[in-house]
C-alpha cells in the first residue's frame, strides 16, 4: 500500500523523557508522519514484538533507540531492531552512555533490588522479592532477568549514529529528522557511520554567554549554598560546572538558567572517558600547592560520582564497580 520508508522508536532502560522530546518537536512531527510510516513505537502506538520479528531484515529505515540495556528483554529488542533496521541511532544519554540508570552500576544487583523492595514507602509486609520465573497453573511465566550492570547500546549491538542529550534537544531532533528527509530526497548525504549527530563540535562553554577569565579555584561549593554572579563563569565562582567537558548541543541551557551544566550531552569529540577528563581539568585549576589545602578544596565536591559520572558511568572506562560487575541476579 504505502512506499514510505519505515520508522521505529523504542525505549529500553530509560525514563521516557526522550519520547517526550520527540513529541516536543511540535508541527515537525507531521513531517515525520508525512515522510515515514511508523511501524513500531510502543509509547505512541500499539504493536507487538512478534510484529517486529515478522518484519524483513533491514526493512526499517530509521530506528531511534533510547534507553540502556539493563536486562535480557532490552538486549533482545536491541538485537532485533538492529537486524531489522538500516540506520540504528543510539538516541539520548541512556543509550549512548548509560545516563542515570547507569549510575546503578556502582551497586550490586541484590542491593538494588533490596532497596527497591524495602524503602520506607514500600508496602511489602512479606518482604517479597521478584522471581524471574514462576510456576502458574497455566504454566511457567517469565519476567526479564536483570544484568549485573547496565550496558550502553553499542556495548551490545553495532550502532550507526549517536545522538546524546538527556533528552536530546528538540531543535536538534528536528534538525536530524530534516536531514534524513533531505537524504531521502537526494538533497543531502548521511554523515559517516559512527558520527555523533545533533551536536556541535565544541563544548557547552562555547555557547555559554558568561564571561570567563583564567581559572583559579580556591573553593568548590554547591550552587544552592551560594549567591552566584549571573554574568561570571560558574566554575570560576567555585560552582562545579561540567560545561567545559560536555559536548556542545543544548545551547548552554543550564548555565543560562543560572545552574551549572551537569553533563547530559556527554563527552566531547575524541574524549574516551568523560569523568577522567573532567577530574583532570578541575584538578588543573585548583589554586594551591599544599596537599592539605588541596584535599580541603576537593572536599567541596561532595558527590564525585554524581559530579563526574552522572551520565556516563556505563560508557566510561570504568563501566561500574567491580562488586556490581561481579554480582549475579538471583
Amino acid at each position, binding site marked *: 500500500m504505502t512506499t514510505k520508508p519505515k520508522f521505529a522508536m523504542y525505549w529500553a532502560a530509560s525514563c521516557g523523557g526522550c519520547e517526550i522530546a520527540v513529541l516536543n518537536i511540535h508541527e515537525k512531527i507531521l513531517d515525520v508522519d508525512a515522510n515515514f510510516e511508523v511501524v513500531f513505537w510502543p509509547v505512541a502506538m500499539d504493536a507487538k514484538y512478534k510484529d517486529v520479528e515478522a518484519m524483513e531484515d533491514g526493512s526499517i529505515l530509521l530506528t531511534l533507540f533510547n534507553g540502556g540495556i539493563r536486562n535480557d528483554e532490552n538486549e533482545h529488542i536491541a538485537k532485533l531492531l538492529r537486524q531489522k533496521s538500516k540506520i540504528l541511532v543510539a538516541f539520548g544519554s541512556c543509550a549512548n552512555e548509560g545516563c542515570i540508570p547507569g549510575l546503578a552500576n556502582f551497586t550490586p544487583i541484590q542491593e538494588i533490588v533490596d532497596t527497591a523492595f524495602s524503602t520506607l514507602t514500600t508496602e511489602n509486609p512479606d518482604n517479597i522479592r521478584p522471581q524471574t520465573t514462576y510456576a502458574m497453573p497455566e504454566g511457567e511465566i517469565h519476567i526479564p532477568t536483570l544484568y549485573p550492570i547496565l550496558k550502553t547500546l553499542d556495548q551490545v549491538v553495532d550502532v550507526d549514529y549517536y545522538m546524546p542529550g538527556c533528552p536530546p534537544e528538540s531543535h536538534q531532533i528536528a534538525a536530524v529528522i530534516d536531514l534524513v528527509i533531505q537524504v531521502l530526497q537526494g538533497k543531502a548525504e548521511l554523515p559517516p557511520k559512527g558520527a555523533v549527530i545533533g551536536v556541535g563540535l565544541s563544548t557547552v562553554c562555547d555557547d555559554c554567554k558568561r564571561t570567563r577569565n583564567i581559572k583559579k579555584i580556591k573553593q568548590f561549593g554547591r550552587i544552592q549554598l551560594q549567591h552566584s554572579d549571573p554574568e561570571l563563569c560558574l566554575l570560576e565562582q567555585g560552582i562545579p560546572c561540567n560545561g*567545559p567537558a560536555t559536548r556542545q548541543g543544548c545551547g548552554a541551557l543550564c548555565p543560562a538558567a543560572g545552574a551549572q551544566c551537569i553533563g547530559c550531552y556527554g563527552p566531547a569529540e575524541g574524549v574516551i572517558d568523560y569523568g577522567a577528563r573532567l577530574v583532570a581539568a578541575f584538578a588543573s585549576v585548583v589554586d594551591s600547592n599544599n596537599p592539605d589545602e588541596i584535599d580541603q578544596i576537593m572536599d567541596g565536591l561532595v558527590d564525585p560520582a554524581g559530579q563526574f559520572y552522572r551520565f556516563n558511568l556505563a560508557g566510561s572506562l570504568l563501566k561500574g564497580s567491580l562488586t556490581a560487575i561481579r554480582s549475579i541476579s538471583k
Partner: protein
Amino acid sequence: MTEKIGVYVCHCGSNIAGVVTVAEVSQWAGEELASEGVVISRDYKFMCSSLGQELIQKDIQEMGLTRVVVAACSPHLHEATFRTACKNAGLNPYLCELVSIREQDSWVHTDKEAATQKAKAIISGGVARVAHHESLEPLRVPIHPDTLVVGGGIAGIQAALEIADAGFHVYLVEKEPSIGGHMAQFDKTFPTLDCSACILTPKMVQVGSHPNITLLTWSEVTKVDGYVGSFAVTINKKARYVNTDTCTGCGICWEKCPKKVRDEVFEVGLGNRKAVYTPFPQAVPKYPVIDAPNCTYFIKGTCKACEKFCPTGAINFEQKDEEITIPVGNIILATGYDLFDAKRIPQYGYGRLENVFTSLEFERLSNAAGPTGGNIVLRDGKTVPKAVAIVHCVGSRDQNYNPYCSSICCMQSLKFAHLVHERTGAEVYNFYIDIRTPSKGYEEFYNRLLEEGTNFVRGKVAEISSVARVPEEQGKLVIQVEDTLIGKQRRIPVDMVILSTGIQARHDAKEVAKMFGISCSADNWYIERHPKLDPIATMTDGIYIAGCVQGPKDIPASVAQGAAAAARVLGKIQQKEISLEPVRATVNQEQCSGCRICNDLCPFNAILFHEETMVSEVNPALCQGCGTCVAGCPAGAISGTGFSNDQILSQINGLLLLRITDQEYA
C-alpha cells in the same frame, strides 16, 4: 597491516642480557608479533655501537622497513642515536620508537623469567604504538644574535664578558645600582685569600666599558615573551634621578647629601650611606642613584642639596621609570642567592644577642673598605674580641631548615677563623658537624688552619646564651654544645659569635622562574636539564642558568658555569638557526570552547588566549611538548604530537598482550 616493522633487542653487554633472555625475546617478537607487522627481529650485543646501528640501516634499505622499534635503554640516553641512524638510512627519524627494557626492566628485576616476559610486553607495546607514528619534520627558527644576562654577580659578569669578547652583543640587567653581587662584599676569598676587590673590580670595569655590553643596572625584567631565538624582553629601568650622560661620578652629591640611611643591602645594616649613593666606591657604573623613599626632597619637597652642588647639573628629580623592550635570542639567568635568615633559629640569638653576627656581616666587618675599616670589633664598634666562636652549618643540613649542604660554609668559616686570628689574635673555636673541603686547595687550607691553632669542636651547637652559670661566663656569650669527640657537654664562653649562615634560593626565585618559564626544585633552586650532563641548560630552550641560582657553589664554580653558559649561547648563535623537536601540542580551534582551563597551566607560558575569537592557542616554538595542557583540556581540543589517543591506547593494549574482553563485564 601495511607497515613493515623491524624489532632490535639490545643486550647492553650484561646490563640487559644478565636478567632478560634476549635471544628468546627477539625470537618471540619475530614470530608472535608478525601479525602486528613485524617482519624482522634481531638481537645484538650493543645496539648503540656503530655495528648495531648499521644492522638497522641495512634492514631499512634492503627490506624496506617503514617502522623501527629498538628495545634497549631509556630514550633519554639513546633516542637521538637511533633516530639519527634511521634518518641516515632514509627513514623519517620519528618513525623509530625506543622502548626501555633496561631502566624499566632488567635493572629493576631479579626474576629472570618474569623480566623476560615483561620485555616481551614492553616490545609488544612499542610495536603497537609505532604503527601509529607519523613522519615529522623538526621546526626551524632563526636565532637573534643578542643575549640577555640577568644578574650581575660574578657568574653573570663572566658570562657577559665571554660573549661580548666573542663579538656578540649582551644586555646585562642588574637590579642593584652596581654590578658585583655578593663577591663585591667580601674582603678575602678562600682558599687563596686573594683580595676579592682586586680580582673582581677589573672584570667589573671591563663590563662597564665593553663596546658589546649594554649595562642596565637599577633595572629589572618585567616580562618575557617569545621563545628560543626570538625572545622579546621587557625591562623596567628604574628612575635614577641622575642623568648618566652628564654625571662624571665625582661623588660631590653624596658628599653633600645631608640624609644618612642605614645600608641594609651592601653593608647588611652595619653601616650607613646617603640618600644619593653608589653602594661602594668601585661601583660599576660609577653613577649614583637617588633612593627616593629616603630622600628629603621626595619626602618634604625641599633640600636638593645634590642638585645645587652637582658640577655638571646631572641631577634630575623629574626622571621617570622607563620601560624598554629588547629582542634577544638567548637568556642566561645568574641571579644568585640569598643568605639564610639566622633569626629563624631563635636559640642562636641572632637579633637578640648583640654580638652574634651573620657570615655576611662578618664579611663587611673584616673588609678594609667596610664600616670598621677592616677592624674586627664587637657591635659597640671598638672592643676587640678575645674569644670568638664560629658556628658552621647554620640553617644548612638541618631537617628543620634547609636539608642540603650550602657547600661554601665550611670554607667560609675557615676563612673567618684565619682572619680573626690574623687580625685580633683571639682564641677561635669552630663548631662543626663535618668538615667538608672537597675542592682544589681546600683541604690544604684546612690543614693550615689546624696549624694556626684554631680549636675545632665537633658538635652541633645547641644554644647560644648570655646567661652566666659561673663567674667566668659573666658578660660573655656561652656556647652550649655536645662535643661528640669526647662525648661531653661543654659550655664555652666567648665575646663574639659568627653564625656561618648557609645560602638559599632568592626569596623571589619562584616568581622569576615563572616569568622565564623554567622550573624550580623543592628548595627553589633552578632545575638544570640534566644534573650531570647538562647542568647549565634548562628544560626551556634558549634559557640557561649559571652560578648559585642553580644551587650553592663557590666562586670558581660560578665562574665556570658563567663561562659554560656563554659557550652554549655562542654555539647557538653560530648556528644562526636551530631546529626544535616537533613534539608539540596543538589546539583544534573548532573544538576549543574557550573555557580557559588551560590558560595558566603551561610551565613554559606557551598558551595564549585570543579574546576576540575566544579560543586558546599554543605557540609551537615555546611549547616543549610536556603534555600538561593536553591532559588538562576537558574538551579534548588539545593534542600532543607523538602522544595521540591512538598511540597511547594501542601501546597500552600492546603492553597488556591481550585486550580486555567484554566477557569480563558480562
